[in-house]
């Protein structure tokens, strides 16, 4: 897949030493069982050569994916659309290490010149844009998450906006520009992306509006109508004209195409992720690109290639424990939990028992106040088993939501408890999807989910 015009020269001098040290550190880290072996080496590499990110990105077509929710899934779907089954055709940080150490590791481990699709932590997007000179930047959504680290959604939006203003416009003779694929339904994303020279606005939907009610332009109020269109009540800040939008489960473009988003991942938020990736994928290819078999990549082709993705880093994974099917779900913040509750309603939840696991480690955010923004009242009628480091915060929240719950310290024991509860004769008798037959949903926030995934 290496094309001579964009072939990367092998890193030389300092960068070459940094790459070798990076690989050795990652190998050691894996060999010692200290982790997935991407962050440690990345740190070593960046310490030896602070310019390593730019060096490794040179000669590659780079796509960056950022936002509060859906980064990992969208990255995975975009990789599927571009790689088309060719294993190492795309460099990507699929272990979830979404800061520069993870990015250099991902690129150092892939052939020079291979395309790179990188999931980027929201706070690092500006640096990644400056150093990797991406072809495409995908901006999904922005809402409250880890406020102890990022402080305020609006500060983040302003930083994104400043980075967008630095992007270069359309391709020159031998230079490429950057195209931003941005969610037109999220006012925060629109405000951030607006200064970029070339934006494809995608109406991907946004379930969570509570961080976007104050107009970022003038401080006025933003009104949303039933189909997601929005406008400020004071100034002319409004949803931009969309190049593409999700209509139910179809991706419609202003060019008149209409394609079913038939992916294996459940829920409307995953169809939104797939739509963003489907619009982004063609922007990563050049005309007459080898590997795309002579035909240019269309959103339809991209969507077809995504159908191979059945789970993403364990999210939405089905597993079985003691003969019972379990479904593992990740929800990190109020917007994510709301989307997961929508998913339970859409796919039919098991009313018998649900396991909820909440931690508040650094990667989760240290403040658990967000639990009170999550509509746990929607779990009324379920038996909830609360677990995780912060199970007591969760238990108090469930008490005030008047949701039936028990607290079990160990997450695996909590799953077993849920299985036992689901086998008890139900007061109302087992209905469809209930009782002893249905899958038990196990929902965790970031590190709680990771622990469950590892142990189940």
């Amino acid at each position, binding site marked *: 897949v290496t094309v001579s015009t964009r072939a990367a020269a092998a890193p030389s001098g300092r960068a070459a030493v940094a790459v070798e040290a990076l690989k050795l550190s990652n190998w050691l880290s894996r060999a010692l069982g200290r982790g997935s072996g991407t962050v440690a080496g990345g740190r070593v590499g960046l310490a030896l050569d602070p310019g390593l990110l730019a060096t490794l990105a040179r000669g590659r077509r780079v796509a960056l994916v950022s936002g509060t929710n859906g980064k990992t899934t969208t990255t995975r779907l975009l990789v599927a659309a571009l790689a088309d089954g060719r294993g190492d055709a795309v460099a990507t940080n699929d272990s979830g290490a979404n800061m520069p150490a993870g990015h250099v590791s991902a690129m150092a481990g892939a052939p020079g010149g291979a395309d790179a699709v990188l999931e980027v932590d929201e706070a690092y997007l500006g640096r990644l844009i400056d150093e990797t000179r991406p072809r495409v930047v995908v901006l999904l959504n922005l809402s409250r998450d880890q406020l*102890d680290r990022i402080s305020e959604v609006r500060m983040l939006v302003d930083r994104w906006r400043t980075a967008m203003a630095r992007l270069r416009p359309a391709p020159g003779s031998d230079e490429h520009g950057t195209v931003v694929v941005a969610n037109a339904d999220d006012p925060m994303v629109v405000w951030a992306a607006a200064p970029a020279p070339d934006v494809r606005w995608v109406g991907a939907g946004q379930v969570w509006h509570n961080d976007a009610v*104050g107009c970022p332009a003038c401080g006025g*109020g933003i009104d949303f109508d039933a189909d997601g269109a929005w406008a400020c009540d004071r100034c002319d800040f409004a949803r931009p004209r969309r190049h593409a939008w999700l209509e139910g489960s179809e991706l419609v473009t202003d060019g008149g195409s209409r394609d079913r988003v038939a992916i294996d991942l459940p829920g409307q938020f995953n169809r939104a992720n797939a739509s963003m990736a489907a619009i982004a994928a063609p922007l990563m290819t050049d005309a007459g690109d080898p590997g795309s078999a002579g035909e240019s990549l269309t959103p339809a082709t991209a969507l077809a290639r995504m159908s191979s993705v059945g789970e993403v880093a364990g999210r939405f994974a089905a597993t079985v424990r003691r003969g019972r099917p379990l479904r593992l779900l990740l929800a990190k913040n109020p917007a994510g939990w709301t989307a997961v509750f929508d998913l339970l309603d859409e796919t039919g939840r098991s009313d018998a028992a649900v396991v909820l696991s909440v931690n508040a480690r650094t990667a989760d955010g240290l*403040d*658990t*106040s*967000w639990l009170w923004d999550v509509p746990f009242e929607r779990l009324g009628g379920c038996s909830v088993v609360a677990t995780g480091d912060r199970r*007591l915060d969760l238990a108090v929240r469930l008490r005030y939501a*008047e949701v039936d719950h028990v607290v079990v310290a160990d997450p695996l024991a909590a799953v077993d408890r849920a299985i036992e509860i689901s086998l008890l004769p139900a007061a109302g008798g087992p209905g469809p999807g209930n009782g002893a037959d249905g899958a038990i949903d196990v929902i965790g926030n970031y590190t709680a989910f990771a622990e469950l995934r590892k142990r189940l």
Partner: protein
Amino acid sequence: LAIAVVYPDLLGTYGDGGNGIVLARRASWRGIGTDLIQAHSGRPLPDADIYCIGGGEDGPELRAAEALIADGAIGRAVDRGAVVLGVCAGYQLLGRSFPDRAGLPHDGLGLLDVTTDKGTGPRAVGEVVATPTNDAPRLGSGQSLPPLTGFENHGAVTALGPGARTVARVVRGVGNGGGDRTEGAWSGRVFGSYLHGPLLARNTALADLLLGWAMSGPSGGTVPLEPLDDAQESALRAERLASVGDSPRARLFRRWADRV
């Protein structure tokens, strides 16, 4: 009993809407008819017995303060004996003035004699434990409040004027941040604090104190409320207090802090 969560669309960033939920449930579990109102901005503030104002970002805080001053309902309600709880940005805007993002001062509601300025140090982010001062409000039983636990996340510093009474002194964390190591302020039935968590979910004695104030009507004082089974809240409090280390050294420090 009408409980209004003030402008959740502007001041709902840090889960402080939970304070309204806690008050409403604790009242209704005692058989008190309760109305929990989400009072969105852009329309007149409804009459209520308790107003809960939460934390938010700088821009929305300014917009909320302007709207509340123009509306005028909170000031009138306080004169009638209504209870007001302000947390973080909601606490700042109850005071005389607070800063915008650039540090320029703006008028607050003036219901608490406190003044907030942009801080110069690092943002205060983390767990807080604060022990009530002698000047803190007393529970209906005459006992003092138990230690306050919560999570703070703010960059500003709040100074108490002579008309504001102290609530607590921080054992862990920053609180008001003015060098006096106080956290929160109160006067009459207006109570301000920097603590999220939410504050009343982690400090149910304070929740019941505010409910008692509201139930006693405009004459003042407080009414005793029947106790609830707070085993889960107590377990959470114990775990949170232990998480910041209630070591002998911390206890010594606290005793010293209470004297100075």
